[in-house]
């Protein structure tokens, strides 16, 4: 653990990926990006030079993207956030909209998307909501689409669900099979998954609610500002943006175009175009 990588080597890696594959990691937060790269070096017992050689191979790039992105997540992470969504935010959106569009930006292995679907089903508004879930990493998207979660995580997911005060039992929504929890496939009926890079990707649609939680923490402030501009553009006026509980818009250029709706849970509302 903790191989130290030179900044010059980090630059060689990001330059190669940028010119060859058009993914730009230049403005990722340095400490975590360095840790992800050393993790790959250690897992595969590679030198930096060998890593750079291997990155010429697009198949290895797929693997690299899968490891470089952080895919550690929980269902109903921050149960109080989900309660706020259920009790305040969604009812507010429902007042003015018959149909709701939600974007999970950086959906990873899909825990947040499934939590959303369960919440909407329990609120009996599943049919009125269309969900788009995107991630940079096609491998993790494939997993999310399958709706299969590691069984060993279900204990934690269950605890979060209980704290969220769901109306059912989490076990009603999945079937255990060996070490996998197979989620009820109908939970993903209203969800479309697609590959999208927040850094290089275009704004592709408008939404009433965008969830981008614990994604921008892997970016530096410059990139956070750029991405926030895209998220802002992807929201209808008076749409809502939810970020991680320890993220903040305070230092961001775009703060003035949002109103803080819930400071504890970090939910913002777009008030200016």
């Amino acid at each position, binding site marked *: 653990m903790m191989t130290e990588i030179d900044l010059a080597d980090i630059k060689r890696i990001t330059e190669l990926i940028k010119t060859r594959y058009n993914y730009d990691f230049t403005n990722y*937060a340095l400490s975590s990006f360095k840790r992800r790269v050393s993790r790959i070096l250690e897992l595969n017992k590679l030198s930096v030079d060998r890593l750079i050689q291997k990155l010429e191979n697009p198949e290895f790039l797929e693997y690299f993207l899968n490891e470089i992105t952080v895919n550690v997540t929980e269902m109903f992470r921050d149960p109080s956030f989900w309660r706020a969504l259920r009790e305040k935010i969604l009812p507010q959106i429902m007042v003015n909209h018959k149909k709701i569009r939600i974007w999970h930006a950086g959906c990873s292995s899909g825990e947040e998307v499934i939590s959303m679907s369960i919440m909407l089903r329990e609120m009996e508004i599943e049919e009125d909501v269309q969900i788009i879930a995107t991630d940079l990493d096609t491998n993790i998207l494939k997993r999310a689409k399958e709706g299969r979660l590691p069984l060993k995580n279900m204990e934690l997911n269950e605890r979060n669900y209980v704290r969220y005060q769901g109306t059912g039992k989490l076990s009603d929504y999945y079937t255990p099979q060996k070490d996998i929890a197979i989620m009820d496939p109908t939970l993903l009926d209203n969800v479309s998954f697609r590959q999208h890079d927040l850094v290089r990707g275009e704004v592709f649609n408008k939404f009433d609610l965008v969830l981008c939680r614990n994604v921008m923490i892997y970016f*530096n402030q410059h990139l956070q500002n750029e991405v926030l501009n895209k998220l802002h553009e992807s929201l209808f006026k008076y749409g809502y943006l939810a970020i991680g509980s*320890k993220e903040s818009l305070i230092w961001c250029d775009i703060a003035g175009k949002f109103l803080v709706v819930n400071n504890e849970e970090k939910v913002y509302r777009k008030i200016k175009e």
Partner: protein
Amino acid sequence: MSPGSSHSTRYKAIVIGGSAGSFQGIVKILSALPDSFPIPIIMCLHRLKHVRNGFVEALSLKSVPEIIEPYDKQPIKKGKVYLAPANYHLSVELGNYFSLSTEEMVNNSRPAIDLTFHSSSYVFRDKMIGILLSGANRDGGLGMKSVKDKGGLTIVQDPAECMIDTMPKAAIDLAEIDHIYSIDNIISFLLKLNNIKYES
């Protein structure tokens, strides 16, 4: 320049790690420090992940300086005390600000002390002090080694005084430790940096 001020400008951060059995020690250290203590203090303590605010509230019941659980990208300021938020790793970035991450647990812990020590030693080099207190696993040991490797000063709580000594002992195994101190001695040491006399 007086010896005191040269000391306090020498160090840019004090990073404290602790786990089981460190709460009393932390409270004692923080309540002994004056409000004007000039060096930022960054704490990474193992804690219950689902209790988002309880720890800060428990600490704030004691007469200690205000404790900040930093947001991602929050700048590190003189005279402030920071605590790694629950369920996030806390890193220090070049340019003197924090970043948070939800990466895999390290040593079964998030926040992991190794990770905070490692990233802060990279930024602060010989201008930091790493302090490791009582704890029940080996987290922090390798982090102390990176503090020492970068020229920082390493202090562990005397294992004889610790409620659970696994953590300080691991650090003594893995890293060169400059001082093995009781909590009282840690306090005197920190106050001396700022030319203040401590009477326990």
